[in-house]
């Protein structure tokens, strides 16, 4: 709880601080009540000597705070699983596995959102294709780490000689959840391997489709980890396969809807690209 709420709070502060100089610019282009709101949110930014000096220091500090925070948060969340003695969760690879998975799915989600946004807002000159190339490289690297983690999990459970530990992995690959499992492996490990081809890394249509597959794969990863381990816990009497009820499906769709609504509101009311950073780059 500490980890996740700290992550949220620090991310919001980081996001807001980055917006302050841009909100002052937005004020210039608005009228009426909106102008008041942007003016208040920009906290009276004018771009003076002191403001820029403190702002640069704050931004560097927040970046320094946020980077180890990403590692710690995803490690802590993974330990919530790893500390349990449930077969399939009790593994030391979980922390790096979850950190890599978070960066992996994060890169994919950025692609899913930015590729249509770039087209709709005509930001072709602001977000060059090189950025997507770099993003695709990060995606490929983290995909390799995630793939490696899948292999390590399987091999260690076999090498341990523990029949319960290996049993759950065998059940994941061949049992009731085999379709989810192999779809996950295909989406997260095999399809991203195509990014070794340089041309595909610069093909936005391809990247968009790929990023959707990665999102599906990472969603299924969580599903497989949670559902398949709980389905075959300690006592065979309590075994049972999980199937989402229609209420649960509704909640899931609702969270997706809420997320996209927030994103659309953001792209309607706030600058989607850091204006002052872009200006600094151009000058």
């Amino acid at each position, binding site marked *: 709880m500490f980890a996740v709420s700290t992550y949220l709070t620090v991310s919001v502060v980081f996001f807001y601080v980055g917006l302050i100089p841009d909100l002052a610019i937005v004020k210039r282009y608005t009228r009426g009540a909106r102008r008041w709101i942007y003016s208040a949110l920009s906290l009276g930014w004018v*771009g003076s000597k002191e403001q820029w000096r403190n702002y640069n220091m704050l931004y560097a500090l927040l970046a320094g705070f946020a980077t180890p925070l990403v590692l710690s948060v995803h490690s802590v969340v993974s330990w919530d699983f790893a500390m349990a003695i449930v077969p399939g969760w009790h593994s030391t690879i979980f922390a790096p596995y979850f950190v890599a998975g978070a960066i992996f799915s994060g890169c994919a989600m950025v692609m899913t959102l930015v590729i249509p946004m770039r087209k709709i807002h005509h930001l072709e000159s602001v977000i060059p294709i090189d950025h997507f190339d770099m993003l695709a490289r990060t995606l490929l690297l983290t995909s390799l780490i995630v793939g490696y983690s899948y292999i390590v999990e399987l091999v260690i459970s076999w090498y341990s000689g523990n029949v319960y530990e290996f049993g759950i992995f065998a059940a994941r690959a061949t049992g009731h959840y085999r379709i989810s499992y192999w779809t996950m492996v295909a989406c997260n490990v095999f399809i991203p391997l195509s990014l070794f081809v340089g041309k595909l890394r610069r093909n936005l249509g391809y990247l968009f489709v790929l990023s959707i597959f990665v999102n599906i794969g990472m969603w299924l990863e969580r599903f497989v980890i949670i559902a398949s381990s709980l389905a075959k816990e300690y006592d065979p009497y309590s075994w049972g396969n999980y199937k989402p009820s229609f209420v649960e499906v509704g909640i899931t769709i609702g969270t997706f809807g809420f997320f996209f609504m927030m994103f659309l509101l953001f792209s309607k009311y706030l600058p989607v690209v850091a204006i002052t950073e872009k200006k600094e780059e151009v000058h």
Partner: protein
Amino acid sequence: MTERLIFDNEHDFLAKLKELVRGGVHPKCIDIRAPHAVHEVEDILASRPSRVRVFALIGGLLGAFTGYAFTAFTVIDWPLVSGGKPMVAIPPFTVIAFELMVLFGALSAFLGFAIESRMPAIRTIVSDDTVTDDFEIYVQRKG
């Protein structure tokens, strides 16, 4: 008396700033308005590093201390001994201490930024002035 100089590009702005400082104007009498961060300004005006970092340090240390103190206090207040393990266990408490260090550090850095930059500046918020694309220099001259 305050003199106001306006430039439409960064190069002329920096050249004039250097000229003023070399001409003997004290950096304290100079203020600027810049549409984006210009890192050379801090070198020219020989500014001290921002005090925001002191706020971050104090906040971070306070957060780490709070994290350890909070966890240690709760286990001592309601002791549940299991397996003869020590009550105040430093390694797992470090996770909480780290999270609170980041949280307090980031929040106090933001607070420090607001205090040091005199923000929120009510007068600017209420006024109709806006930032422009120009670079400006304000020079306070005596007399």
